[in-house]
C-alpha cells in the first residue's frame, strides 16, 4: 500500500480535513482514535470547547509525563489537562448536554455508515463478543452534527460505506458527513454525495470501494489537506 494514489489520505489528513468543518465557538465531542487527532488541526483563531462524557467541559491536551491525575481523564480514559473556564459535572448532567442537543459536533469512528445516515459503530453482532456500547448511542442520538472519520474500507478491504448497515445500528439516520481515506462524503436525502476527493484517487476507485450508489458533486474538488508528512508532523 505504498502507492499514494491508492492509499489516499493519511489519518492525520483526514483529521485535518474534519477540523476545517468545526466553526469558532463550537462545543465538540471527539471519539476515540482518529477523531482525537482533530483537536490538533482546528485552524488558528477558532476556539473550540471540548466535552467528554465522563464529566468535563473545556479540557486540553495530555499532561506532561508525571502530571497525570487518574481523576482527570477523557472518555477514552486517557489523561487530559484543564483549560481556563473548564467545568466538572456529574454523568446525568453530562448526558443532558448530549441528549439535549447542546453539543454542536461529535466526530466519531464507525464500522459502517449507510447511505440513509445509519451508523454502526458499537458491535459487529458476532456471537460470543462481549457487547459494549458506552456513550456511543447517546452521542449519535443527541448531538446536532454527527460526523464520521474512518478508513474508507476495513483492513480486509471490505467497504464501510454501505447501502444499508449489516452490523447492529448505533442509531438510524443521523450521520451528516463522512471523512474517509478517499474524500468527503455528504449524506443526502438521495444517498452519499462525494464532495471532495483525495488527491490522485480516481472516482472509479472510490466507487469500487463503496457498497452504495455514489453521486459526485458538480463542484467536486480535491481535498486541500497538507502533505501527509507535514500533517503527521503535528501529531
Amino acid at each position, binding site marked *: 500500500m505504498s502507492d499514494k494514489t491508492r492509499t489516499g489520505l493519511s489519518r492525520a489528513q483526514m483529521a485535518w480535513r474534519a477540523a476545517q468543518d468545526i466553526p*469558532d465557538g463550537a462545543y465538540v465531542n471527539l471519539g476515540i482514535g482518529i477523531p482525537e487527532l482533530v483537536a490538533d488541526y482546528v485552524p488558528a483563531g477558532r*476556539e473550540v470547547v471540548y466535552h467528554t462524557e465522563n464529566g468535563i467541559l473545556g479540557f486540553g491536551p495530555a499532561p506532561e509525563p508525571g502530571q497525570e491525575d487518574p481523576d482527570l481523564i477523557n472518555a477514552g480514559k486517557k489523561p487530559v489537562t484543564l483549560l481556563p473556564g473548564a*467545568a466538572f459535572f456529574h454523568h446525568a448532567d453530562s448526558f*443532558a448536554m*448530549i441528549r*439535549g442537543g447542546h*453539543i454542536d459536533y461529535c466526530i466519531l469512528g464507525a464500522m459502517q455508515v449507510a447511505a440513509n445516515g445509519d451508523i454502526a459503530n458499537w458491535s459487529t453482532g458476532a456471537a460470543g463478543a462481549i457487547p459494549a456500547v458506552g456513550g456511543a448511542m447517546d452521542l449519535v442520538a443527541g448531538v446536532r452534527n454527527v460526523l464520521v472519520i474512518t478508513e474508507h474500507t476495513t483492513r480486509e478491504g471490505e467497504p464501510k460505506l454501505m447501502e444499508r448497515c449489516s452490523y447492529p445500528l448505533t442509531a438510524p439516520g443521523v450521520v451528516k458527513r463522512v471523512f474517509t481515506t478517499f474524500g468527503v462524503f455528504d449524506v443526502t436525502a438521495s444517498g452519499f454525495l462525494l464532495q471532495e476527493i483525495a488527491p490522485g484517487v480516481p472516482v472509479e476507485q472510490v466507487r469500487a470501494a463503496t457498497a452504495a450508489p455514489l453521486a459526485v458533486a458538480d463542484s467536486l474538488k480535491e481535498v486541500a489537506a497538507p502533505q501527509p508528512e507535514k500533517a503527521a508532523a503535528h501529531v
Partner: protein
Amino acid sequence: MMDKRVPDVPAALADVQDGAMVLIGGFGESGSPIELIHGLIDQGARGLTVVSNNTGNGEVGLAALIKAGRVAKMVCSYPRSSNSKVFPELYRKGEIELELVPQGTLAERIRAGGAGVPAFYTPTGAGTVLAEGKETRDFDGRTYVMERAIRADFALVRAELGDRFGNLTFNKAGRNFGPVMCMAAKTAIAQVRRFVPAGEIDPEHVVTPGIFVGRVVEVPEPAQESALIEQGVSYP
C-alpha cells in the same frame, strides 16, 4: 474566541421575537432577573408565553411585563402572592391565559426539556384536577401522570459570577430555577453581578456550565423587587 459577554441589557435582548417562549428565573424576588425583565419591556416583544414560578409583585419586574400587556400566557405554579394585583386582574378579565403546574413538575419539565427527555412520569398531581386531560399510567401499583418537557426560545436568569464561556455561579437560594432554565432555552441570558476572567471560577464550583448559556451581561447592583415596591416604583 468564545465570548458570551454582551455590553448591556438591550444587546442581550435584541432578538427576542413576538410570540417567543421565555423562561424567567426566580422564586418571588429571590433570583429574579429584574433588569433583564425591564429590558424586555423596553425591547417591546409581544404575545410572549412566560414560564416562571410566580407572576410578580407590585408593578415592577414580571408584574410590570404582564401589566404592559406583553404576556399572552403564563405557565407557573403560584400565580398569586401577598402583593400581586396585575396578574389576578388580567386573569379575571380573561386577558391572560394560565397553565397551572405543580412547582416540582414545573422544574422537572424544564429540566427534561434541557436534557432531551420529551416526557416523563410523576406521582405529583395524580388523582387531582391538575391531572385532568393528561395521560396516566400505573407503575408497580401506583398511578403516575405523564408530563411533557418544556423547551423555550429564551431564558432570563440572575446569577452571581459569569465568565466569557458563560460559566455561572448563583447566590444562595437565588439559584432556584436558574440552572434548569439555562438548560432548556435555545438562548439563555444571564445577568451576573460580576464578570470574572475565565478560570476564576473553580471548575469544581461551576453551577451552570457555559454550554447552557448563550449570553452574559453584567448588572453590578441588581435592584430588589421589594425595595422598588417600597419606593413606589412602577416600571417603566
